């Protein structure tokens, strides 16, 4: 088995578990009593350890193991949740992330591991005494048979050994209670049923999950008992564990007042057993608990590499282009039969295109998820108190957009915390809540998705912006005087503008808001700012729902950029004007033994010729059908990914242009329709 094959799966799955760790730790910090979260973290760390171990990633495995040990203590209630332990766990998670992305940047892993270990040791001894006290009240995983004196007496009076039988039914079992009844009935022939968990009357009312436990007393062996249950249908798994602790009860030496302790003994034992089970079942675990990890791993989804989706999308895009070509044949030759047949085809291709687009839609929570952690860390660093509210995280956007908006959002949130929200003392003085509010929200608006970052901080002061804009030479005094207040605020998006005197490492980072603006515009979105001094600011980004991206080849004709779809390009040549011949009033060149007609894009696109004589004319050789044409441009820019925007052709006579494109730098180019430009 070649482990490299699993590399990708490992990467994406470990990513998931790291996310779970991050999320759960955050929740845990706010809700220290949340057992579910501790279990969640434990499972994630445990699984990571196992996965990394299998892959031979020894460092990841060891670090995860160290985390797991601490989480185990948290789970048992042996140590409490506090900032110290959370910070330590976060540090471990960060390093796990680094290990999987940039292993070279990991510093002093050994130090961290020993830090984790030493934490374990010190706290363990300190709280060892509490363990005893806590053990009765802790843990949701514990099965508490809660035996009465009578039941204990039955165990001690009767001969036979107590055992716990764990029955796991198949998860699509319909009448679980009937299966449980069949189990009880079968068992009764071999011994005494002391108690069940959940209680028998609850089981009869179908109040049970796939798994239930039975405390059973029998003189028979484990094997015979297991065999007796073997013939009952729909049982997934049977596990029988002998209870040694109860052995003492049968000696009869126990006094009444000691029974309490023994009960605890049983419970603890059962609990240990459960832990062991959890441990063993970790990988295939599909517990009834509706857990984070389960939600992430819904069974009815499959993982597909984005690249595959992209290539599917490209194929579909090409299909659409080809369809259009066939359609135009039908139209120009008036082939009614063909036109009729093409209608359903065109419907199907459009639907196909839409479904591929939909497949690429992912919830914005993928981006929003990182903010709770980021905000927490920043707030801690800057001694600010911040309440982050996230809304609309289920809003879906194209994968490409999701990938791209992360950094701009981080930048803006950092700004909001660094510049917007005031210190708690300052806020108190102003009569605001000590805790600043940052609201991150996403929602649909027509064909767009709007992403907003709101804060209730100090707002943007237009006076400061004016002053700075003039200083930085972003705008002149006379220009500014003609501007409205909101226009002035928008100046912070201008290139070369940064309001903060010293670029601090929180919000500065060497990039300004202009980078954010450029990025969003390159995704054919827009940025808007509203701000009121003393009340706060709102940054609104409007983004398109979907994006079509193609590989385009950029050229320049006069002062305008054009895109030629890459798939039609044969080669790029520099044509010497002396080599141009004229055949039947058409300009041609000889290329590899054939004659290639030349087309002046200036003529075709109604652009003024500069008039200057060039020694070499950059020419793009395109293939249309089986013919070659040379498109003469002014200059070649090169290959680039461009985002296609459809142009609404209301007049119906848009010729030679297939659509618009938005370039990486946010500027606009037109896509040349190669077929039309070569035939018209």
């Amino acid at each position, binding site marked *: 088995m070649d482990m490299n094959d699993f590399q990708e799966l490992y990467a994406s799955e470990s990513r998931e578990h790291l996310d779970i760790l991050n999320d759960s730790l955050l929740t845990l910090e706010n809700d220290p009593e949340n057992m579910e979260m501790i279990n969640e973290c434990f499972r994630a760390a445990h699984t990571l350890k196992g996965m990394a171990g299998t892959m031979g990633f020894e460092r990841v495995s060891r670090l995860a193991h160290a985390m797991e040990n601490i989480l185990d203590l948290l789970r048992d209630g042996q140590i409490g949740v506090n900032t110290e332990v959370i910070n330590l766990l976060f540090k471990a998670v960060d390093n796990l992330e680094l290990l999987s992305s940039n292993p070279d940047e990991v510093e002093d892993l050994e130090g961290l591991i020993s830090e984790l270990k030493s934490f374990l040791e010190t706290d363990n001894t300190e709280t060892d005494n509490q363990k005893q006290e806590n053990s009765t009240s802790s843990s949701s995983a514990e099965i508490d048979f809660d035996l009465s004196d009578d039941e204990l007496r039955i165990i001690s009076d009767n001969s036979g050994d107590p055992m716990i039988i764990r029955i796991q039914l*198949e998860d*699509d079992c*319909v*009448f679980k209670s*009937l299966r449980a*009844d*069949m189990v009880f009935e079968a068992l009764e022939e071999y011994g005494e049923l002391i108690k069940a968990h959940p209680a028998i009357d609850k089981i009869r009312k179908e109040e049970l999950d796939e798994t239930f436990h039975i405390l059973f007393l029998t003189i028979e062996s484990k094997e015979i008992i297991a065999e007796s249950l*073997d*013939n*009952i*249908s*729909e049982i997934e798994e049977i596990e029988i564990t002998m209870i040694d602790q109860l052995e003492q009860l049968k000696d009869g030496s126990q006094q009444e007042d000691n029974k309490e302790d023994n009960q605890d003994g049983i419970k603890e034992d059962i609990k240990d057993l459960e832990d062991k089970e959890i441990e063993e079942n970790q990988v295939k675990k599909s517990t009834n608990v509706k857990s984070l990890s389960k939600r992430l791993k819904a069974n009815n989804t499959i993982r597909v590499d984005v690249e595959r989706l992209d290539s599917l999308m490209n194929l579909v895009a090409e299909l659409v282009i080809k369809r259009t070509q066939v359609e135009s044949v039908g139209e120009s030759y008036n082939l009614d039969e063909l036109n009729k047949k093409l209608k359903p085809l065109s419907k199907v291709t459009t639907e196909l295109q839409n479904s591929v687009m939909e497949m690429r839609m992912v919830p914005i929570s993928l981006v929003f998820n990182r903010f709770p952690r980021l905000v927490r860390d920043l707030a801690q660093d800057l001694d600010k108190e911040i309440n982050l509210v996230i809304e609309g995280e289920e809003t879906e956007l194209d994968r490409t957009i999701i990938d791209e908006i992360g950094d701009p959002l981080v930048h803006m949130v950092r700004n909001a915390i660094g510049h917007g929200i005031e210190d708690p003392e300052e806020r108190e003085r102003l009569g605001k809540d000590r805790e600043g509010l940052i609201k991150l929200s996403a929602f649909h608006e027509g064909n767009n998705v709007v992403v907003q970052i709101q804060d209730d901080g100090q707002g943007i002061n237009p006076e400061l912006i004016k002053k700075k804009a003039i200083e930085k030479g972003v705008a002149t005094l006379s220009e500014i005087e003609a501007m409205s207040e909101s226009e002035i605020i928008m100046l912070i998006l201008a290139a070369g503008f940064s309001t903060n005197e010293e670029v601090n490492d929180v919000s500065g980072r060497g990039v300004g808001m202009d980078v954010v603006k450029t990025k969003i515009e390159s995704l054919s979105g827009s940025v808007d700012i509203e701000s009121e001094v003393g009340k706060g600011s709102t940054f609104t980004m409007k983004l398109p729902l979907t994006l079509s991206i193609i590989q385009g080849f950029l050229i320049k004709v006069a002062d305008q950029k054009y895109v030629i779809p890459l798939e039609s390009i044969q080669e790029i040549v520099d044509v010497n004007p002396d080599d141009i011949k004229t055949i039947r009033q058409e300009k041609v060149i000889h290329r590899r033994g054939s004659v290639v007609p030349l087309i002046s894009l200036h003529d075709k696109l109604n652009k003024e010729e500069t008039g200057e004589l060039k020694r070499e004319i950059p020419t793009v050789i395109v293939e249309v059908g089986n013919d070659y044409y040379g498109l003469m441009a002014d200059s070649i820019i090169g290959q680039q990914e461009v985002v296609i925007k459809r142009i609404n052709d209301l007049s119906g006579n848009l010729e030679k242009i297939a659509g618009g494109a938005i370039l990486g730098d946010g500027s606009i180019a037109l896509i040349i329709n190669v077929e039309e430009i070569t035939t018209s």
Partner: protein
Amino acid sequence: MAKTVLVVDDAQFMRTMLKKLIEENGYEVVDEAVNGQEAVEKYKEHNPDLVTMDITMPKMDGIEAIKAIMDYDAEADVIVCSAMGQKPMVVESLEVGAKDFIVKPIKPEKVKDSLNNILD
């Protein structure tokens, strides 16, 4: 010789499906019956190793049929085929002597397990 099964169901579809599943698992469907009365008659005729018994049927329902079969042969092995909402009937069938139950819509795996549990 292959173990024999009597399939009882008033629906042709269910009989066909069960027959196919039973035969796929290496058992022989010795006959089919479309109601309880016929089931009892055919049981007496063939003495099969197993009966799959539908509950809701015309003339005589499955529960009555099980009772009659058990009266004739206390060792008879019967699997009840019930629908989702018929839990009380399943309980009753088990009380009168059915050995196992399967729930419709039936799943091949479950039928197989149930057959094997009783016949092997």
